[in-house]
């Protein structure tokens, strides 16, 4: 078994190494035709930029994406600087330099990778998937009999912030930085998923298609790990299947197929304010322009946020979304599961969490207010603050840095729900409903708690579950996403996720069950 696992690890690392090396490979040569087409399509009026590219880029061959990118971005930035100085606003190119560069690079690449897309897919994704499965599937035997087996998690460098954890952290953070800010460096990655994108939407793959594809793949492979680790626990198996289904079908397949039918790309489960650009004017315009179907999406988006979310939270707690449907939650529960114990449980972390997560919610609402005001009034600023500026700040700080780079990149250091816990505005909204008007709670079982602390340790949301359990108090915290792991790891059967009657849900107790009734009366009287 160990041998199979080592082989798997070897295959996986080989695939990963090839995947990383792709960044540094390939040849890029921009042809005159392609460039002219881009200039026409984008309506570029800057002759400075056009000349610059024509002299320095067109017809020259580059052997790595960095020098190619640097030529494009320098040309773009220097042209823009001149135009801005001369107030030639119609000539300024507003596309982000690296996105522009990505567009050019995507159609300029040639050579071995572009010619052998499927081969390189097999050498990267293929080896990665195969290796991971070789590593994971023997766990059916190596983990021992079904049951909670967290053996050695704190002895292992990957799951206890050891050197492997830090390596994974660096890899993930770099990946997100490239994905969000330097898409032109990862053109080769998008080539290898082109065939899949063509099959689904009829378009070549963008970096976002690549991300969606990778996301779904990683979730599927790591879901296999969840199925094996929690094979004794039906709640975990059903929940994993559910998040996997919603990711693959709702977040990945349906939006791509919509594009094939020339409908707007839309993820039907992505509720505002997590879907923070739902009310941005470009989105509203696009939806309205798409006729009846666009209007349906618009109405659905609003109904989902205003009606479905609170009603479902009332009956089932926020877990119906965070642990059964949400894509961020889905990645956290599959790829992130090995890191769940690393979340900070200190009081300080909790204090920070409440300020941050509610702050982001307020920020999202203010931004949406500004956006809608601008949309209907036509003004581009409110109280002297540009709506676009607010949107850009939010998109950069929250959408990219928090949700992506920190949210996932920090899994191996801060645990798997950093984003959900500290940043997600939808989680804050769901949490309010869960805390004040819901039938959900985690019931604690009388006096059976022995304060061992497994529940707190394995709470990905950093809730000190033990603090409640040892008091026999129901847990109704707004941050609880109902993953059910506290109940799974409890060696004494103390915790149970329940949707019961609202009455008696909040039960502050000073004396635990087991002591004589007189004493309980005495304390209850106070």
């Amino acid at each position, binding site marked *: 078994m160990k041998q199979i696992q080592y082989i798997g690890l070897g295959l996986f690392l080989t695939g990963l190494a090839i995947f990383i090396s792709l960044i540094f490979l390939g040849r890029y040569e921009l042809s005159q035709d392609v460039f002219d087409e881009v200039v026409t399509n984008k309506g570029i009026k800057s002759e400075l930029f056009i000349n610059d590219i024509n002299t320095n880029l067109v017809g020259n061959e580059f052997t790595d994406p960095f020098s190619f990118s640097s030529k494009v971005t320098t040309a773009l930035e220097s042209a823009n600087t001149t135009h801005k100085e001369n107030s030639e606003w119609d000539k300024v190119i507003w596309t982000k330099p690296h996105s522009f560069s990505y567009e050019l690079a995507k159609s300029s690449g040639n050579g071995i990778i572009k010619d052998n897309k499927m081969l390189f897919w097999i050498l990267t994704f293929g080896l990665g998937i195969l290796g991971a499965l070789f590593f994971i599937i023997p766990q059916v035997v190596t983990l021992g009999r079904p049951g*909670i087996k967290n053996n050695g998690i704190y002895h292992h460098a990957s799951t206890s912030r050891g050197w492997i954890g830090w390596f994974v952290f660096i890899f993930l953070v770099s990946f997100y930085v490239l994905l969000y800010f330097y898409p032109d460096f990862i053109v080769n990655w998008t080539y290898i998923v082109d065939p899949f994108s063509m099959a689904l939407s009829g378009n070549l793959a963008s970096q976002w298609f690549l991300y969606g594809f990778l996301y779904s793949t990683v979730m599927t492979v790591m879901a296999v790990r969840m199925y094996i680790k929690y094979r004794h626990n039906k709640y975990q198996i059903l929940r994993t299947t559910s998040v996997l289904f919603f990711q693959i079908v709702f977040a990945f397949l349906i939006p791509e197929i919509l594009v094939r039918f020339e409908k707007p790309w839309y993820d039907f489960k992505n509720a505002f304010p997590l879907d923070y650009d739902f009310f941005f004017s470009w989105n509203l315009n696009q939806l309205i322009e798409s006729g009846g179907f666009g209007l349906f999406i618009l109405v659905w988006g609003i109904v989902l946020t205003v009606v479905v979310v609170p009603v479902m939270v009332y009956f089932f707690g926020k877990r119906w979304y965070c642990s059964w449907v949400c894509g961020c939650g889905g990645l956290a529960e599959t790829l992130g599961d090995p890191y769940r114990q690393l979340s900070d449980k200190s009081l300080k972390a909790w204090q920070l969490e409440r300020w941050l997560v509610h702050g982001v919610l307020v920020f999202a609402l203010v931004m949406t207010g500004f956006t809608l005001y601008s949309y209907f009034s036509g003004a581009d600023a409110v109280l002297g603050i540009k709506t676009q500026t607010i949107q850009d700040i939010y998109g950069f700080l929250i959408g990219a840095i928090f949700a992506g780079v920190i949210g996932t990149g920090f899994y191996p250091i801060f645990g798997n729900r950093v984003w959900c816990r500290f940043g997600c505005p939808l989680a804050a909204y769901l949490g309010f409903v869960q805390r004040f008007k819901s039938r959900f709670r985690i019931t604690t079982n*009388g*006096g*059976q708690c022995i304060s061992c*602390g497994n529940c707190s*340790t394995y709470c990905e949301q950093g809730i000190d579950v033990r603090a409640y359990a040892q008091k026999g108090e129901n847990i109704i915290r707004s941050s609880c996403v109902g993953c059910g792991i506290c109940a799974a790891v409890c060696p004494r059967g103390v915790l*149970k996720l329940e949707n*019961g009657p609202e009455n008696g849900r909040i039960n502050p107790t000073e004396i635990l069950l087991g002591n004589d009734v007189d004493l309980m009366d005495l304390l209850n009287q106070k």
Partner: protein
Amino acid sequence: MEHVVIIGNGISGVTAARHIRKLSDKKITIVSAETDHFFSRTALMYIYMGHMTYEHTKPYEDWFWEKNRIELKSGFVNQIDTSSKTLHFEKGDLLKYDQLILAAGSKPNKFGWPGQDLNGVQGLYSKQDLDNLEVYAPDNKSCKRAVIVGGGLIGIELAEMLHSRHIPVTFLVRETSFWNGVLPEGESEMVNREITRNGIDLRLASNLKEIISDENGNVKSVILEETEEEIPCNVVGLTAGVSPNINFIKDSGIAINRGVLVNRFLETNIPDIYAIGDCAEQHEAIGNRRPIEAVWYTGRMMGEVVAQTICDNRLEYKPGHWFNSAKFFDIEYQTYGWVHGKKEQPDHEVHFHWKHPDDTKCITIAFHKESRQFLGINNFGIRMRHEFFDRVLSENRSIEYVLAHLADANFDPEFYKLHEKTIIQKFNNDHNTTIQLKKKSWKRIFQTS
């Protein structure tokens, strides 16, 4: 300001301190020689198994003590001078108290086996025991085999710990079946099978004769009493129960027997001195309970009660219905009320036993032969609701009532397979009854008293 000194920072002492702080403004000092901060002893095994770190086992963050003005003193008490109300520490320093709470816990039993003090021979109770285990059994290269002596809850936990690091374990159990002094036959046998399934070399009806030393004073092997067989090993776990840790009390004039003798108010024979938790011994047993109960939660309850007494609300220690829980490898166990093992089973106590074909779930319900009153339940592999059984015990419900309402009692996670129907079916078959299962009712489950 009165000064309450508590010896021992386990669950009993710390609970007492917390409740005294809730109820009063007294000066509180907790004395311990084990660790600086309170940690949960029950979680020691999970540190070794790598589920948690020592930090995770502390229920309160380190700032908690200063914030709540609970002073922590590290030191070992040598002697208690009850006339001058002074504690004498090993290092020569003194501490005055106005009220003293003895919460010193237990120590592992040793029965005078030859070699019981060798290196690598140890119990599993304190943080130091865990540190020792890390020295003598860090992995299966340094420790080729471990032998565990004594078939109780700590023994099986130690077996699981060593097993998690792939160290072969031989488990010597004096009884003919694991824990059958406490568990009824069917359950005890199921646990035997669970132990064996996990690859433990379980030796029933086996006693330790002698522990053999190598030339460096380390354990080399053990010899069995019955067969004279020699089993080579590097670690010997002594888990044949615990006894009160009261050596330092012996010359103080505080009345002791096996533990520190206390009345129902947890008072010793000396005014202003109380004893709680594992080290306390009731003059007379309470109900079916033993005079010394080395159970985690009773320590907690005694802490709650003694705090009331010290804060001028003199209260009797009245534990409610017996309950407990444990885990045997992957099988969780809970018990509510009394279900006796064969040896101690009274004549009027009848057992109903149900076992799932997968051999990891079973229950035994005890009831009164004539009155049909429900007496207790043992559940293995199925979680049950404490409130439910506490209520049916207080209301003296019948076995029929309990079975009919079994759906209310289930505490398993959602979507788990329910077994109530087959349980009742078996009972109806065995006893010619026609009990019908009632649908689970939130109204009954969460009824407010």
